[in-house]
């Protein structure tokens, strides 16, 4: 921690990048979380520095792809090199059959929330 004029945090973020940012193409990997409910999945992406109009969400069978352009370049220094990131991008495989047509999304406070209904496949069991 240093007490210079610029505000800096005393806490140190890990140097090792476990999120696999694509430095060559200036793409950040966003945090995401998937929660399972009885009838649907709730998938969230943390997309700070992004506007709704710059987000693209696509499905490819059981995979969901999210891409977003940052409002401004985000600079990060890693082991002496400064990279100016311009995009978020992530693809996730969903653990089950999904109903693409009923999927909805909303974007609030830099968080993209996608509600994905589960596809019901199977046969009724007659109860005697």
């Amino acid at each position, binding site marked *: 921690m240093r007490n210079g004029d610029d*505000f800096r945090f005393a806490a140190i973020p890990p140097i*090792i990048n476990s999120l696999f940012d694509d430095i060559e193409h200036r793409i950040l990997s966003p945090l995401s979380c998937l929660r399972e409910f009885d009838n649907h999945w709730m998938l969230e992406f943390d997309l700070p520095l992004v506007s709704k109009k710059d987000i693209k969400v696509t499905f490819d069978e059981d995979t969901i792809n999210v891409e977003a352009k940052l409002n401004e370049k985000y600079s990060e220094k890693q082991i002496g090199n400064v990279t100016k990131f311009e995009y978020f991008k992530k693809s996730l495989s969903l653990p089950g059959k999904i109903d693409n047509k009923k999927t909805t999304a909303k974007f609030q406070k830099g968080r993209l929330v996608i509600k994905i209904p589960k596809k019901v496949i199977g046969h009724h069991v007659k109860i005697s």
Partner: protein
Amino acid sequence: MKIAKYNTKENTLLVGFPSNGLVGTFSVSYLIHHLKMKQIGEIEIPDLPLTLFVEEGEILSPIRAYNKNNLFVIISDVPFNQYLAEEFALAINEFCKKNAIKKIVIVSGMETVNQKKDNPKIYGLVTHSTLDGLLYNNQISKFLNGSIFGTDAAIISVFRKTNIPALVLYAECHPFFPDPEASIIAIVTLAKILDVKIDTRDIENKIDKLRIQYRNLMKETVQTLQQQQEKKTRTPQIYR
């Protein structure tokens, strides 16, 4: 109801570590910076995997102690699993004994029940009724029902058996994403409790960048917390 006046002059320890929303990490490190606190030492935990941080050529321990006047701070840059959390709690207790600490304040986050809320709330849990007045005087809602696990629980378990009272502040936050916005609520509350003036504009201006910068620590923290939560029976959460 008789409310005892809180003495801001007695030695107080503030503790922050990675937890839900990284609320403790953001708020405690912000206070260290703004109060211009000096590092006075490092906290060693025997079983902690050897980790050192290098910042501009300076080697730093992941768990450090700071001081200014009657305020002491312990901050950890690494999350703890169940076993390390117990060791961390015992190390804090030792620190308290050596520095004549009269009370400790822990800052953490709790999952927001309704994530549409514009103004996250803050709740307080005290180990000793002597700190009830602190909640009342600062208009902090008492944490009445719920379960606690992880490092918070380890610290509470240790201190409820001692004569040093502990207050845990829980700011409502997003549990899986860094939440500097929730941390601002914690900073404002801490400033009132500690009777210090803190300008939060710096963190307000950096909210978005902090959310990007601290992604890896958040991911590591959630993975650690989920290992601790394995035995719980709530809806499984998958973090990717």
